[in-house]
């Protein structure tokens, strides 16, 4: 991990990066990384998309209503378009009302959720009756979607360390009519003692949130290289814990709302090295780009191309990274 930090520090900030950083109000080291990731033209396109923002989207909660019925109810107030990947996901093209305060929202018929953020539960694909662990659960967008996929059957253990966000999780569980969840205020790294008990595990890890820049532009300046280091350590430990509590043959989905390779491929790369022969990556065949296998002049495990990357300027979603791991039998 330290080596990765040294590598990042050694990336020299050139004129192009400084110009971008001034023009777009982001830190120079971030600008340089975007150039590395997308080329100069791509970085400009990415940063322009951040300025423009993204369309909002909702997830229809089929635990409470059919999507056709929901569309019928909101059609006079909202113009929506179904997303190509998630059958119950809809972009809001136009709305006469605040989508977070409609009667349908209060009745739990939908959850306001980015389209990319609907993918990790879909890719984890838990079956009704399975035992699922959601390690970083609050405020519960993905927990409640997992419950929706599981038709409220089986069980989900939802962990988080933030008490305020936990309250929001509980409120969302109640609003959306979810009945198969245990919520627990706990550092997810402390769950390892239970042993290999879960069929499926979701690690929607805390991250710098670079993928959310189109929604929260202030993050472009506020995060430092040191913040990234602290998060990388946590992400690595969380994913490691996930592996320890997954049954043999079980599946883990690791996701972040960050496009930074440091928080994504680098973490999974470390895990693949450590658990060589015990973990395999499963191909995610979804709309999006492949995971990176080489960045900053560093070669990574070639299996990483099985992961998925989504970018605001290319896919019109929040920036996201998703990787599906299987624990070999």
């Amino acid at each position, binding site marked *: 991990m330290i080596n990765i930090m040294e590598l990042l520090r050694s990336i020299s900030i050139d004129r192009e990066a400084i110009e971008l950083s001034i023009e777009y109000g982001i830190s120079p080291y971030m600008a340089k990384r975007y150039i590395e990731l997308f080329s100069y033209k791509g970085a400009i396109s990415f940063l322009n998309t951040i300025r423009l923002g993204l369309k909002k989207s909702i997830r229809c909660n089929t635990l409470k209503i059919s999507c056709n019925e929901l569309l019928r109810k909101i059609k006079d107030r909202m113009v929506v378009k179904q997303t190509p990947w998630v059958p119950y996901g809809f972009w809001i093209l136009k709305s006469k009302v605040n989508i977070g305060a409609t009667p349908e929202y209060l009745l739990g018929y939908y959850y306001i959720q980015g389209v990319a953020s609907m993918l990790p539960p879909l890719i984890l694909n838990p079956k009704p009756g399975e035992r699922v662990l959601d390690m970083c659960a609050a405020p519960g967008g993905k927990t409640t979607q997992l419950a929706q996929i599981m038709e409220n059957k089986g*069980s989900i253990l939802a962990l988080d360390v933030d008490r305020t966000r936990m309250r929001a999780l509980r409120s969302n569980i109640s609003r959306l009519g979810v009945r198969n969840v245990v919520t627990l205020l706990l550092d997810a790294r402390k769950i390892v003692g239970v042993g290999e008990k879960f069929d499926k595990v979701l690690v929607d890890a805390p991250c710098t949130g670079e993928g959310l820049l189109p929604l929260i532009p202030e993050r472009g300046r506020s995060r430092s290289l040191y913040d990234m280091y602290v998060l990388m350590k946590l992400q690595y430990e969380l994913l490691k814990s996930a592996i320890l509590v997954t049954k043999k043959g079980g599946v883990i989905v690791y996701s972040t709302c960050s496009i930074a390779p440091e928080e994504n491929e680098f973490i999974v790369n470390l895990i693949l090295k450590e658990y060589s022969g015990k973990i395999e990556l499963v191909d995610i065949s979804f709309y999006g780009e492949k995971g990176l296998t080489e960045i900053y002049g560093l070669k990574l495990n070639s299996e990483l191309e099985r992961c998925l990357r989504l970018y605001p300027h290319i896919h019109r979603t929040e920036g996201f990274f998703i990787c599906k791991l299987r624990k070999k039998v």
Partner: protein
Amino acid sequence: MQIKEEGLEKFKKIIYAEIAKLFGKEALRLIRRLGYNIILLGRGNNVYEAFLVNNELKELLSIMKKINIQNPFSIGLFVGTIIENKSNIAFKVGLDLMEYLAQQLRRNIVIVSDDAAKLFLYGRDILLNSIIKILPPISYLTVIANKELEILGIAKPLVNLETFIREGRRGNIVALKNVVDKGWYLRKGG
């Protein structure tokens, strides 16, 4: 929050008796048929929260018990709050359970006009004139729904609704007092 095990039977009895008062014995049969059990979480100061849990969730709790983690924030379906004083034990039923049972059993529901439904979600009471229909028997607490039978919250009848409706009485008197409504998700809960 700690899972309460001692003296649980006494609390369970009170909770089941209240559920039967609100939705009849049928509700208890439904809970049993679905394999639900009651679990209590201590909140301090002799206050407990009750939840209905299925067998899979119970199994999950016993796994967590093995590593001495026994303090969930919530589990399964929220039933209500129990407050134990020196002299008595009070049970306050929660919206999640009321909604679930009303939907399953189609009873103890008051259906109100569109305008009244909107105002109810802002915390307002229900006038007698706003009632369109009732699905009896109506208990000491009842569920408020709109014309599409969508559940909006819980209210306390201030008059004998079944008699009033049977006799066709009308008027701008407050017939039901708002106890909790789903506007809460925006006002406090979101």
